[in-house]
């Protein structure tokens, strides 16, 4: 930059600023010396001596300080000039050419001699065009060095003659003060002078410059616009008389100043935040500009702000670029670290980007379908050949067909079929006799992508229809995946082309691409985690230690919303307190235990609107990964959050409830048997009983003791089983409570006005069934009856306890259907019917599986009746 300054590279910008500031700065208001310009037409140079003397007479009358003529009037002889100099306070300049001529030297000598006699009249220096300064004129000569001699300018001579201006011998030019130019120099036409229309106050004690205007006179481009040379001279004389010449900083001073500003920027930019950097920079620019304006306005000093501004802009741009470059590098590094961490820890390789996409397809197929052998063939690009890619349970060389041309059989057959085709000829070698070979085309959107050759073993479990359907569906999916992968690769190749990058201004992979990748990875992972959390059977909400919800799953949201609790507006302590009906202080104690002791608590949920059998589990999630704290966020007690889960224990509760009922029944049987043994023992001692009866009593005691042992053993085996979770198994279960629950639910949720009439024994035996499915049986039957019943109708439920069976009767007063239809629905699988009847057919089979019996009857206009019997549970098998 300094080189640039030394080479005047920034001069143009600085001159522009100079001109602008000159136009808009205030000048020094001095009344000491004022210059008045009298403009005469160019032709007036040739006016008669009389005309000149008349004009001079008019001016002198008003007592000017001096009258300056840039050159001697043409009509004046030397003697005229001498007379004029004697009579008037004249100062006359000469053009450079005239000054250098011999005659001038003579006349100068003469004039000088004359002027020495009269100190008020001095003959002065040369009049010449100012030095060019860029594309305009801003300076005037003080002296002019010719080959022969050093000449003083008219302006300098005037200033020295009138104001005693002290001239620095080394200074050859000076900057004219154009500030307030519009008001500084009054301009009067010579015609007004000749007519005697001058105003004394304007002329008196002023320096009068007589100049010429006309087509042949030069016009100069200045900071205040194009002006005549005479006006330019007037400003120059005015500047020198008032010693208002504009002082410029020299190169060294400018460089020191620019150095200071650069140091300021270097210290400032890295220490302020990004969003204030630009503002601070503009403040510095404006400050520099204002400082410059201040110096120009009040001290007439030009500090060359253009250079300083360019220095500031250059340094700031470099710093800003470097600063952002560092940011970008840091961001990219961070993004790559995140991506690497995410990919390494969580994500499987992307199918589109992976070179091993066929392996992924093979893995998908092998883990889902039971295929004996599989070979995938891929179409060779821009060719009708195929190449084998991946083989499972066989070798790639096992393909007998050598042409690999999909324009030939057997490929053409598969393409014509558009799906799985069974091959008659041997396509894969080394196949067993019972292996059946198939070929599947892999095509999508009319594009042939490859083939899938496979074999299936025809054994007892072989269900060709089902397997081929699955293979067909898989082939569609694989084809679509391959097609989209190919499209994606095409797009990537297009994006990677240099000219595309050039046109889209992507010269380098920007940081945001890396960040975007990282965010996409994280988003994908987050979606998976949210899906996992929502898919959990337990309701869960994760709070941080500040009481804010980090994550809540759908199940928990629904559960809490059902009981008018908003997880986002309550803390973990509130949740514990509400769900377990404990005091808030107790809930806080629980949380303290979880946080401080890293413990876990499990509390029964006792909220009145949550069904029984739920447990609230509260535990802290520890921060096991130190990298998680990279963001600088605080993790009090190294705990990420407190996880509150609602665990459905109702099935366990149900197990114990069922087992308790079995125990109750066992207790009854034991009491009966013990009663029999006790009474028999007492009677055996009774003397009133004969021997034969006593023998019978003893036998009965023995039988009862054996039976007692058998009952205890059977019940013991039931106690040890987890029969509630075993769908297919059937054990003694209580039917009373689930039936009443179903009826109650239907009564509470019914839209029709239906009356439920129940006739149930006070004591019901346990029945042999599956606990999980028995309630479903009641629901299905009652739903069907409900859908058929008339408004204000009745649904009747009766249970009869017979010797070894419990009979359930469900009927309604409904519309009914023809009985043959009902029987057909119950027995014929192919008939079209509603889901309710399909369910009915399933439950009929279940009841039969439990050793029961199922009957159904319906009559149009009367309604429906379903009766089924289940075995009662007895201690004795």
């Amino acid at each position: 930059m300094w080189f640039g300054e030394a080479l005047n590279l920034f001069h143009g910008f600085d001159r522009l600023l100079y001109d602008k500031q000159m136009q808009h700065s205030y000048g020094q208001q001095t009344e000491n010396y004022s210059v008045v310009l009298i403009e005469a037409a160019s032709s007036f140079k040739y006016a008669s001596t009389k005309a000149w003397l008349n004009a001079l007479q008019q001016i002198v009358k008003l007592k000017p300080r001096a009258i300056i003529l840039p050159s001697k009037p043409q009509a004046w002889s030397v003697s005229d000039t001498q007379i004029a100099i004697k009579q008037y306070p004249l100062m006359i300049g000469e053009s450079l050419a005239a000054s250098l001529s011999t005659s001038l030297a003579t006349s100068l000598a003469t004039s000088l001699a004359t002027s020495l006699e009269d100190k008020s009249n001095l003959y002065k220096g040369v009049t010449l065009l100012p030095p060019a300064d860029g594309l305009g004129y801003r300076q005037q000569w003080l002296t002019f060095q010719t080959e022969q001699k050093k000449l003083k300018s008219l302006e300098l001579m005037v200033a020295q003659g009138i104001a005693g201006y002290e001239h620095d011998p080394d200074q050859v030019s000076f900057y004219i003060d154009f500030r307030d130019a519009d008001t500084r120099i009054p301009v009067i036409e010579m015609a007004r002078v000749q007519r005697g229309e001058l105003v004394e106050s304007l002329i008196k004690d002023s320096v009068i410059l007589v100049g010429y205007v006309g087509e042949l006179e030069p016009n100069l481009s200045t900071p205040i616009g194009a002006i005549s040379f005479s006006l330019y001279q007037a400003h120059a004389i005015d500047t020198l008389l008032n010693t208002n010449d504009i002082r410029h900083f020299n190169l060294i001073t400018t460089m020191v100043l620019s150095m200071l500003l650069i140091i300021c920027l270097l210290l400032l930019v890295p220490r302020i935040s990004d969003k204030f950097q630009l503002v601070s920079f503009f403040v510095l620019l404006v400050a520099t500009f204002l400082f410059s304006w201040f110096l120009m306005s009040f001290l007439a000093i030009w500090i060359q702000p253009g250079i300083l501004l360019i220095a500031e802009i250059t340094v700031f741009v470099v710093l800003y670029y470097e600063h952002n470059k560092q940011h970008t590098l840091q961001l990219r590094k961070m993004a790559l670290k995140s991506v690497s961490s995410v990919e390494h820890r969580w994500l499987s390789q992307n199918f589109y980007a992976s070179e091993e996409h066929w392996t992924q397809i093979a893995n998908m197929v092998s883990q889902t379908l039971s295929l004996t052998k599989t070979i995938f063939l891929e179409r060779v690009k821009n060719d009708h050949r195929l190449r084998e890619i991946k083989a499972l349970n066989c070798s790639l060389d096992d393909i007998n067909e050598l042409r690999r041309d999909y324009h030939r059989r057997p490929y053409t057959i598969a393409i014509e079929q558009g799906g799985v085709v069974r091959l008659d000829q041997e396509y894969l070698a080394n196949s067993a006799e019972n292996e059946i070979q198939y070929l599947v085309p892999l095509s999508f959107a009319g594009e042939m992508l490859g083939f899938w050759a496979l074999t299936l073993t025809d054994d007892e479990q072989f269900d060709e229809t089902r397997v081929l359907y699955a293979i067909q569906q898989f082939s569609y999916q694989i084809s679509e995946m391959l097609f989209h992968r190919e499209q994606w690769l095409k797009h990537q190749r297009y994006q990677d082309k240099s000219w595309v990058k050039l046109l889209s201004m992507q010269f380098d992979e920007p940081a945001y691409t890396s960040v975007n990748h990282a965010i996409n990875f994280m988003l994908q992972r987050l979606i998976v985690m949210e899906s996992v959390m929502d898919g959990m059977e337990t309701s869960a909400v994760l709070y941080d230690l500040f009481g804010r919800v980090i994550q809540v799953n759908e199940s928990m949201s629904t559960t809490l919303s059902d009981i008018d609790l908003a997880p986002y507006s309550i803390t973990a302590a509130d949740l514990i307190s509400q769900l377990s009906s404990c005091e808030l202080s107790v809930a806080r104690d629980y949380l303290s235990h979880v946080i401080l002791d890293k413990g876990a608590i499990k509390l029964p949920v006792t909220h009145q609107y949550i069904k029984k059998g739920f447990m609230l589990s509260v535990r802290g999630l520890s921060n096991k990964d130190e990298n998680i704290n990279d963001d600088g966020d605080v993790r009090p007690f190294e705990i990420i959050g407190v996880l509150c889960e609602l665990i459905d224990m109702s099935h366990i509760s149900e197990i114990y409830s069922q087992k308790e009922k079995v125990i109750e029944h066992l207790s009854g049987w034991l009491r009966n048997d013990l009663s029999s043994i006790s009474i028999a023992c007492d009677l055996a001692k009774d003397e009133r009983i004969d021997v034969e009866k006593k023998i019978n009593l003893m036998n009965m005691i023995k039988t009862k003791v054996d039976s007692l042992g058998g009952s205890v053993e059977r019940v013991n085996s039931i106690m040890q089983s987890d029969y509630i979770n075993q769908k297919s198994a059937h054990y003694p279960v209580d039917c009373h409570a689930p039936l009443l629950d179903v009826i109650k639910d239907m009564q509470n949720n019914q839209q029709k006005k239906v009356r439920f009439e129940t006739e149930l024994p006070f004591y019901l035996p346990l029945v042999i069934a599956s606990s999980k499915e028995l309630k479903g049986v009641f629901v299905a039957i009652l739903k069907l009856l409900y859908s058929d019943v008339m408004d204000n109708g009745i649904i009747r439920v009766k249970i009869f306890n017979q010797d070894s069976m419990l009979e359930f009767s469900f009927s309604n007063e409904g519309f009914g259907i023809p009985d043959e239809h009902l029987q057909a629905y119950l027995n014929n699988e192919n008939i079209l019917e509603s889901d309710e009847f399909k369910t009915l057919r399933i439950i009929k089979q279940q009841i039969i599986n439990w050793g029961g019996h199922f009957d159904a009857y319906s009559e149009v206009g009367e309604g429906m009746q379903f009766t089924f019997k289940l075995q009662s549970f007895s201690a004795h098998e």
Partner: protein
Amino acid sequence: MNSLSKSILLVEDDRSLRDLMTMILELEGYKVAVAHDGQQAIDHLEKHEVDLVLLDLFMPILDGTHVLHWIRVEKTMETKVLVITAMTDDKTQSSIMAAGANALIKKPLDVDKIIQSVKALLESS
């Protein structure tokens, strides 16, 4: 009161217990009729008068609570009812007493408990 003039209806589904209790009561001089479920008991009571009904609660067809309800509510009979039950919880016992049972004996039974309870009930009249 002479026990020979007293008739008892024994309602019990467990055959062994029914036979043994019949034996005890007959040894004590009571006339004993038996029913092995609630329906048989009602059928018998509709045809015969008895002084005491020894009633087991948990039975097939019709359980003891139905029989008790039939006796007290439907027929408003004042026949004494001694309920035999294996249910030991207080709630069941109080509900049985509230339903009209005169007394209640809990299983397991023994001879003395049966005889004393029966005698106490019959003598109280």
